[in-house]
């Protein structure tokens, strides 16, 4: 049986939306480019303290956006934690999986460090490095490690708030010394960006792994430490 809404109305509406999207996209890529932000952004990359255009946009020109991004992550995790405690977790892994995890997790942490450093002049940066750290946590959780290798709850709270804290504090301190909020002074920019990115990487990694657990981590089974 044909249900009119589901089989006629929605497809017709979607075709209309698709035609509109396709038309505007076609105009966007074929039409006169006009004044684009790309030229301005690329022209100012040398002043930004890093030579990778994407990192300079993320951590310098649109640093506000990235700060709020970290706040979104933190808020999502707080929402997840407010819903109760995490499930008991998985069985301890068999030896093959355990061996593989033992090999891969250090490699992931190493790659995260590389990603963080290389983000200054090539594709990479805090978000990619944080995603790798988060993946390491997910891998540990899947292999049956309690709490995905995250520290105890008190320290975990500090860790997930670290990104927003360092970012906002840097911005406020820059205001105190007379520059604008998150307007890095030339010369210092590179080190400020690296510091913020390091804190953001740790916070993103811990947040993603904690979000994967799906609730407040349970107390550690052996030590009784709330982890």
């Amino acid at each position, binding site marked *: 049986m044909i249900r009119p809404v*589901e089989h006629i109305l*929605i*497809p017709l509406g*979607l075709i209309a*939306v*698709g035609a509109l*999207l*396709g038309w505007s*996209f*076609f105009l*966007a*890529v*074929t039409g006169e480019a006009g004044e*684009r*932000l*790309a030229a301005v*952004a*690329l022209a100012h990359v040398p002043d930004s303290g890093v030579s990778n*255009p*994407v990192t*300079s*946009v*993320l951590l310098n020109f*649109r640093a506000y*956006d*990235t700060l709020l*991004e970290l706040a*979104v*992550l933190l808020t*999502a*995790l707080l*929402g*997840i934690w407010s*819903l*109760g405690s995490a499930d008991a977790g998985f069985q301890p892994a068999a030896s093959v999986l355990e061996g593989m995890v033992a090999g891969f997790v250090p490699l992931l942490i190493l790659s995260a460090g590389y990603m963080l450093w290389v983000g200054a002049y090539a594709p990479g*940066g805090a*978000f*990619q490095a*944080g*995603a790798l750290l988060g993946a390491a946590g997910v891998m540990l959780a899947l292999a049956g490690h309690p709490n995905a290798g995250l520290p105890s709850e008190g320290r975990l709270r500090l860790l997930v708030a670290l990104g927003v804290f360092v970012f906002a504090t840097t911005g406020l301190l820059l205001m105190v010394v007379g520059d604008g909020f998150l307007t890095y002074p030339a010369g210092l920019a590179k080190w400020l960006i690296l510091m913020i990115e390091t804190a953001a990487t740790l916070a*993103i990694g811990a*947040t*993603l792994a904690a*979000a*994967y657990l*799906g*609730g407040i981590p349970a107390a550690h089974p052996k030590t009784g430490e709330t982890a």
Partner: protein
Amino acid sequence: MTNQVLFAQLLYGGSGILLILLGLWSFLVHAPLLRKLIAINVMGAGVFHILVAIAYRGIETPPDPVPHALVLTGIVVAVSATALALAFGKRLDQDADPG
């Protein structure tokens, strides 16, 4: 802008639009929360396709960094929003079916 760049942009952006429509359709038609969540993520992937396609300037010229930064942050927001929605869904299931 050469034809080859335009072709790549239209192909990639067109697939992005297709993904958005597929996701939107699935979101509207299917009732279960998990299917809606997957649909939203498919839509998000479509949006990222379009942003990356708009940023493309050919192999030799560097891409527009502004849409790229948007995609990067967008991925992280999508992941965390999905995690939050899954936690909500799990809690709803627990409350609907105690024990």
